[in-house]
């Protein structure tokens, strides 16, 4: 195996993480709000339909509920470029976590999926005294370690780190990646998928979507103009953007707002896709004060430029468009199922007569949570 490198003009070896590559994409997501689990065939079918929205340089899936037997452990999915970096990373893991089980993620050879790195999976739990010593709870400790590995261990990339969930991604069309990871053998109550269309460079497996941190997973279509402002804002709160991709910074923003700052999801969405000042002016005094506070304290968290994202987390998924809806996004509901996709066709291929089908307005979230989960948390 050799490193997938990008050789640019001056012969400098620039890995994808060191420069920013704009890309368009396709996204899709399905959730069974009762929590019934189903295999990956439907999600693959949906993302495959939008084949032309990606260019074969990236595809990936997130699946929630696939490791019921390890649901209390953090399931780390890691790419290694070579064996040496694998052993170094495993030493780090051994120092910080109790490793319940480890092994490579089973894959099936698919002609179009080539140059795959080593793909390993570990079910771990943070060493308790390590967590307490750093005055951190386990989630904070785990996320710090993940960020440490991705930043300092060149050649190792933790591409999934949630509990009872996992992402499967790489270079190739999404349907081929799905087949490569044999997603038909997994059962999840919620799937999201992404097909990537990066403008240049042979893709790097780590660069594919979804991007994850702990239970968060984000698939994103579009390219945000406020990237550097968001990045430099989120880096002030302990995050380090290693991939320079939109999904990375969006995920960190949600993690910071909801997990670290304990901001209710509905309010976090008002930060990410803030209402316009003119609209705020028309609201009642109390709401005005709230939104003015949001827009002044979290001004740099406003994501500007086109985006349609599906944010997955253990409670369910949330789809959101930028506040002037510069990207397409369709949602539909049928019995316990909620479908979301970049195109209506990608929904209809799975469910031709939905009870409800609509295109959410700019800045207005589609919230599909498991039954019983609180909507405003």
């Amino acid at each position, binding site marked *: 195996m050799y490193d997938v490198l990008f050789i640019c003009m001056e012969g400098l070896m620039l890995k994808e993480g060191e420069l920013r590559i704009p890309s368009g994409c396709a996204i899709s997501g399905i959730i069974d709000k009762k929590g019934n689990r189903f295999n990956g065939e439907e999600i693959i079918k949906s993302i495959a339909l939008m084949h032309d929205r990606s260019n074969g340089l990236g595809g990936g899936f997130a699946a929630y509920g696939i490791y019921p037997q390890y649901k209390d452990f953090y399931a780390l999915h890691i790419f290694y470029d070579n064996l040496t970096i694998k052993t170094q990373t495993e030493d780090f893991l051994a120092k910080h976590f109790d490793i319940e089980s480890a092994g490579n993620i089973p894959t099936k050879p698919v002609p179009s999926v080539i140059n795959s790195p080593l793909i390993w999976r570990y079910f771990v739990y943070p060493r308790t005294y390590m967590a307490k010593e750093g005055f951190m709870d386990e989630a904070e400790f785990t996320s710090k370690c993940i960020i440490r590995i991705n930043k300092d261990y060149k050649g190792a990339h933790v591409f999934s780190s949630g509990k009872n969930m996992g992402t499967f991604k790489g270079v190739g069309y999404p349907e081929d990646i799905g087949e490569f990871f044999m997603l038909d053998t997994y059962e999840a109550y919620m799937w999201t998928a992404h097909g990537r269309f990066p403008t240049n460079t042979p893709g790097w497996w780590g660069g594919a979507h979804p991007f994850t941190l702990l239970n968060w997973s984000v698939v994103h279509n579009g390219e945000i103009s406020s990237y550097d402002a968001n990045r430099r804002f989120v880096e002030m*709160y302990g995050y380090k953007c290693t991939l320079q991709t939109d999904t990375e910074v969006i995920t960190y923003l949600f993690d910071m707002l909801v997990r670290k700052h304990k901001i209710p999801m509905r309010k976090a969405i008002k930060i990410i896709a803030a209402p316009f000042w003119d609209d705020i002016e028309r609201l009642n005094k109390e709401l005005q004060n709230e939104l003015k506070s949001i827009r002044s304290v979290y001004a740099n968290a406003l994501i500007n430029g086109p985006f349609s994202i599906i944010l997955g987390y253990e409670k369910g998924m949330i789809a959101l468009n930028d506040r002037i809806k510069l990207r397409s996004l369709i949602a539909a509901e049928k019995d316990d199922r909620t479908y979301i996709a970049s195109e209506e066709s990608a929904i209809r291929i799975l469910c031709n007569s939905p009870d409800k089908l609509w295109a959410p307005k700019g800045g207005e979230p589609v919230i599909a949570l498991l039954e019983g989960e609180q909507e405003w948390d």
Partner: protein
Amino acid sequence: MGLDFNTPVFEVIRNEKKCIQCQVCVRQCSNKVHSYDSQDNVVCTDDIKCVNCHRCVILCPTKALIIRKYPLEFRENANWTSSVIKEIHKQSQTGGVLLSSMGNPKPFPIYWDRMLLNASQVTNPSIDPLREPMETKVMIGGKPEKLDFDAKGKLMTKMPPQVELRMPIMFSAMSYGSISRNAHEALARAATELGICYNTGEGGLNRDFYKYGKNTIVQVASGRFGVHRDYLNAGAAIEIKIGQGAKPGIGGHLPGKKVGEDVSATRMIPIGSDAISPAPHHDIYSIEDLRQLIYSLKETTNYKKPVFVKIAAVHNAAAIASGIVRAGADAVVVDGFRGGTGAAPTRVRDNVGIPIELALAAIDQRLREEEIRNRVSLIISGSIRNSADIVKAVALGADAVYIGSAAVIALGCHMCHSCSTGKCNWGIATQELELVKRLNPDIMYKRLVNLVSAWNHEIQEMLGGMGINAIDSLRGNRLMLRGIGLNEKELNILAIKYAGE
């Protein structure tokens, strides 16, 4: 003292075919350059008095006047240039400190002109400000670490006071005394109509202008001129002036002849007395003293007014700014070495202080590294010449900019650099009633409104071009900048890529 080596700097050329001897120039030149010879019915000029302020050129009904550099040349010498020689002539004549006005004119690199802006092509759409909303509103003031909500999702955190600016532009501090009452009124009325703020400068606030309080930032400088409880409560925010870009480390000196009845009442100093503001605040000899002053001002205003702290852009600006934030300031104001002044020693103006672009980049980066950038607003000034400068400043990390020289130019200033004489022909930097009258606030405030509105439209165009529809998303967004003609070091300090990367 025998010979006077001084020679004219400018030559006034009158086109006799066009001159109709209407003597408008004679009546309007406060420096008495033009005079009418009734015997020969001809208007003649005394070049040495000319400061090239263009008053006569603009008002001449037949456009018969041209002002040019006085053709007298010294022998070519790149080291001993004519201005260096003339300065020595002047100082050997007067023995005095050379005084001059406006910002540093030296040909140091102007980094605004060496940065280029981004625009969206294909991968994200540019936004058309005529069809889509385009927000330039900014909230200036201290910000809490984070927002807390109760179980039902209701906001708990009580926000500290903010100054809402409809656009990221404010009129910089020009004291009541260095500039005229009418100039202040024009600035105040323009700020009110534009929904932004103007700064009173260190000369206090005339009671008649308290009604513009909502759009006023009152300054507290080392001289404490005109500072009292009502004054502090009159404005929307308070700005402690530690330094000024044009004269870092130097106090201010308003000559006694400019302290007439109105100025003396506003500044609370006797008529005709020289208003000298000391170099340091004599109650701030170190950073923790600043915290005391900040909180005493907040106490006086019942924590209802944000308190800014203005420093000159000097070598250690990044560390100083960080200290200011930790001292409890709600906004850090940094004034670059090109910032204007009514009067400052030429040597200081031309050699002290650093460019605002580098100071801003360093300060923004340092505050982010220390994770305190979001606690305060960062405002810069010191030669913002057009709206592109503003967009680049915001991209480097500024929340808003102050414009001073640009504002007075809109009021009629023609950069003749002789504000310190108090004979400003445009009625701006003068207290002589006859000259002050030439600045009619009813007309001039509209010029300011025109300028700033035009700039705001341009900002919206540039934002739209980058696919951004709110100025917040441009703040600190250094990917939107590319350097050109900059060395590696400058790129690093500005933390921007080179054009083509």
